[in-house]
């Protein structure tokens, strides 16, 4: 080979090598550097990411009775492009109108809706028209059967398809509505336990990469990466539906009798702080929650309403003074015969020298004011907080408010005489019940709990919530002293004779608080309450009954006459349900019953 030829060959080889190097570099760039990008683009053409929906967890009561669960339903979708014959679309609209409860005109309007196609640059008929959600499985089956039976529609069955969904169902309708809450269309909790426990209940959706053929059917052998759905955890509440039902029935009866603006009953286990039953009025049906504007019925009064606690608050001053050694149960106080000129304070009945014990029994405003003054502002303020007032209880339900306790520097000279009788302070009904638990259980403020445990779908415990003591408020001795006084409150000379339950000793305190309107106390608007526990010597439950603006005859609007009898009725049925052993009381000639094997069958002796 001569030199020019060799040179040309060399140049050609170099050029070819350069070309191949460039191609190789480009290939490496595509295959290695841009691999993910191009793989993604290719997958987008023929690979779909199928969502595997997680099942929302179930909410049940302490015995496992389901209170919120899921019902499988369908979303009906129509692809109008599959219907070549316009008469078929009209026939479909007529066929679907009855089962879907929609007029044929509405269905046709939806089916003929057009959308702008970027690809074709013109309006086209939408190929994915969701007609209705929440269609029952049986209705979906009937629609397909009817289509197959129709001569016109039989060949267009592929144009109608269903997507699986789940609807939240509450079998007990209104019962416990404020605690359970509800979900929106996307299964996200909006209120109550559904909201606070949403992250546990909702679970985690899974996914699967699938490929489809030309007809849109999945090619199973080409399934790609798969990640299973993780179902939501189940929530077991501390609520006992047996007790809840009793509370709801008696509260309903009380609402019919007194027609209050609002009413609340809270039943708690004082030893653990667990909520056994909780009911409010007004309420609503969880399966058809009312419109957003109707906030009154949705409000959980037990934690979101603040009321003046009235005389139920007197236990704070008395217990505090006993704990600090400022008084004994037998310390005597001059109750000024019903009117204390110095601070313009009145009692409902004129009383002279009475013991600290009797101050609670007769609910003397003057007496408790003098006890608080002996305790001192600083210490009294301290005990208000120790009993849990002025701070959220931490029950774990949405919308809880802390109440309103004025800081010490904003007290005037009369505050120490008014606050011990529950004026000038705002508390939630739950705070009042929780503070009474501290007296009932021997002096410990317990954290109120509504969740017993969280379990997975196999029954394994994900999280449990053992009873938690917030702080010790008073000693066992002081607790016993206050308890003795509270037993006398329901005795013959007390203010809450109506709260007594035949066969059981009941301890408690009435409260009758005037409502504040426009900065002044309204003359005829009261919040009547009774908070107590039974059996007094070993309480099985603490219960608060609170009626806001009960309608009674003039002069009868007292906690002892309205709320206390409701306590008695619920207490009697609850004792039977819980199998509490009644005791014979010779002095009062109480009905004597003997506990049956399950505590449900009572026999007169």
């Amino acid at each position, binding site marked *: 080979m001569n030199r020019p030829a060799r040179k040309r060959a060399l140049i050609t080889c170099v050029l070819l090598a350069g070309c191949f190097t460039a191609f190789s570099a480009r290939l490496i760039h595509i295959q290695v550097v841009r691999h993910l990008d191009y793989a993604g683009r290719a997958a987008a053409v023929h690979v779909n990411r199928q969502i595997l929906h997680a099942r929302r967890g179930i909410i049940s009561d302490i015995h496992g009775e389901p209170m919120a669960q899921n019902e*499988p339903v369908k979303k009906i979708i129509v692809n109008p492009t599959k219907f070549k014959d316009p008469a078929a679309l009209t026939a479909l609209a007529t066929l679907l109108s009855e089962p879907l409860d929609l007029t044929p005109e509405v269905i046709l309007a939806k089916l003929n809706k057009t959308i702008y196609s970027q690809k074709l640059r013109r309006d086209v008929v939408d190929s994915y028209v969701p007609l209705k959600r929440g269609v029952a499985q049986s209705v979906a089956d009937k629609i397909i059967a009817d289509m197959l039976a129709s001569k016109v529609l039989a060949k267009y069955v592929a144009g109608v398809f269903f997507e699986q969904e789940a609807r939240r169902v509450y079998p007990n309708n209104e019962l416990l509505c404020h605690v359970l809450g509800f979900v929106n269309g996307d299964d996200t909790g909006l209120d109550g336990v559904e909201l606070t426990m949403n992250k546990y209940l909702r679970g985690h959706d899974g996914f699967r990469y699938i490929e489809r053929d030309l007809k849109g059917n999945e090619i199973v052998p080409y399934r790609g990466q798969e990640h299973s759905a993780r179902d939501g955890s189940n929530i077991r509440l501390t609520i006992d539906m047996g007790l809840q039902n009793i509370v709801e029935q008696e509260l309903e009866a009380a609402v019919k009798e007194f027609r209050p603006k609002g009413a609340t009953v809270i039943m708690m286990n004082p030893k653990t702080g667990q909520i056994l039953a909780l009911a409010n009025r007004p309420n609503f049906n969880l399966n058809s929650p009312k419109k957003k504007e109707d906030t009154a019925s949705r409000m959980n009064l037990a934690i979101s309403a603040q009321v003046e606690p009235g005389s139920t608050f007197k236990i704070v001053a008395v217990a505090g003074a006993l704990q600090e050694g400022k008084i004994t149960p037998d310390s005597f106080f001059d109750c000024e015969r019903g009117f204390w000129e110095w601070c313009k304070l009145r009692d409902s009945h004129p009383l002279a020298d009475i013991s600290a014990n009797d101050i609670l029994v007769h609910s003397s405003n003057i007496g408790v004011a003098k006890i608080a003054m002996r305790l001192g502002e600083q210490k009294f303020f301290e005990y208000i907080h120790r009993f849990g007032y002025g701070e959220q209880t931490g029950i774990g339900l949405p919308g809880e408010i802390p109440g309103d306790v004025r800081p010490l520097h904003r007290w005037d000279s009369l505050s120490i005489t008014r606050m011990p009788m529950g004026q000038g302070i705002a508390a939630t009904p739950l705070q009042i019940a929780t503070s009474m638990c501290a007296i009932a259980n021997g002096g410990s403020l317990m954290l109120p709990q509504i969740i017993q445990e969280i379990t997975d779908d196999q029954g394994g415990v994900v999280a449990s919530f053992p009873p938690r003591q917030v702080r010790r408020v008073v000693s066992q001795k002081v607790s016993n002293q206050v308890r003795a006084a509270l037993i006398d409150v329901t005795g013959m000379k007390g203010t809450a004779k109506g709260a007594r339950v035949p066969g059981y000793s009941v301890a408690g305190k009435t409260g009758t608080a005037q409502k504040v309107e426009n900065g002044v106390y309204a003359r005829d608007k009261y919040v009547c309450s009774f908070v107590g526990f039974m059996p007094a010597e070993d309480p099985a439950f603490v219960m608060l009954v609170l009626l806001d603006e009960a309608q009674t005859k003039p002069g009868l609007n007292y906690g002892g006459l309205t709320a206390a009898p409701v306590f008695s009725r619920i207490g009697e049925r609850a004792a039977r349900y819980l199998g509490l052993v009644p005791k014979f009381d010779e002095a009062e000639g109480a009905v004597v019953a003997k506990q049956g094997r399950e505590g449900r069958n009572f026999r007169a002796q």
Partner: protein
Amino acid sequence: MPDNRRRHANTVPIAKFVVCLVAGTFALVAGLGYMWCKNQLYTTGAQIKKHEDELRHLRSRNEVASTNIAKHTSTAELQKRLDSGFIKLGHIANEQVVIVAAKSKPAAAGELRPVANERKQE
């Protein structure tokens, strides 16, 4: 055959034929096997899909049934039926209670035996 004739005769390359035959058969069997496997794959896939659909349908029916059971056995529903008189609570007399437990024989003096919930003879 004499050497002079063998040199000019057309020899049959049996070895080559055999190799081709084996290769062809192998290719045919491999091809058919591949098709059969592929077909099996699709058939199994279709069966998997069918079973998955059946399973989903059964799960769905099961959940519908359990929802209905929960509705009909809920406290609210039972209370409604009790109030309407559809069901009622009745006292179960002592004589009507059957205790499912084997009655233990009288023990000999000093003999240890497990305690059972025996019903007292009235």
